[in-house]
């Protein structure tokens, strides 16, 4: 991974409360797991900084190294690596995700 890419990723997860590196976009997900992750984040009403990793192989490979995680989507909340859609679902079902984003500004009505 190039130093520029590492700096970009480090800043991106720091400057955005919720970052979702996914296949496609939150509006047009291109993979079931990415779609589910975006839906869970929309359900708790937070603004998603979604990044389409299909746009760049360099980004996709860099993220596997940056997060030390082999699959996508990859979610960061307040700079902390959370995981993929299965972890987001798990956290949503036991209320941990709602607690984690409680103080963040909400964009959509909470379901």
């Amino acid at each position: 991974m190039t130093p520029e890419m590492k700096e970009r990723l480090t800043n991106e997860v720091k400057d955005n409360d919720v970052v979702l590196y996914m296949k496609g976009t939150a509006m047009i997900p291109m993979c079931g797991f990415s779609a589910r992750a975006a839906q869970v984040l929309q359900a708790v009403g937070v603004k998603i900084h979604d990044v389409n990793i299909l746009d760049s192989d360099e980004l996709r490979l860099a993220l596997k190294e940056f997060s030390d995680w082999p699959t996508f989507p990859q979610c960061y909340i307040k700079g902390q690596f959370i995981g993929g859609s299965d972890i987001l679902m798990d956290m949503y079902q036991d209320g941990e995700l709602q607690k984690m984003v409680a103080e963040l500004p909400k964009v959509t009505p909470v379901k």
Partner: protein
Amino acid sequence: MTAEEIRHKILAGLPEAEVDVQGDDGVHFQAVIVSERFRGLSRVQQHKLIYQILGNAFDGALHALALTTRVPEG
């Protein structure tokens, strides 16, 4: 890649675990794993443990594995 192969790989790394793997399209799988080794680990650490055990399986056909990891009850 079949569900059975994934199950064997995980059991090789976690012999005492309870492992159930579903998925019949060769690419998307769901695994539920209950193991004492997860006690005290965060979800990310638990999943990373499984990814390490599965090694480079992800470079091939396996690119979607939904994991549910649990510590044994009681």
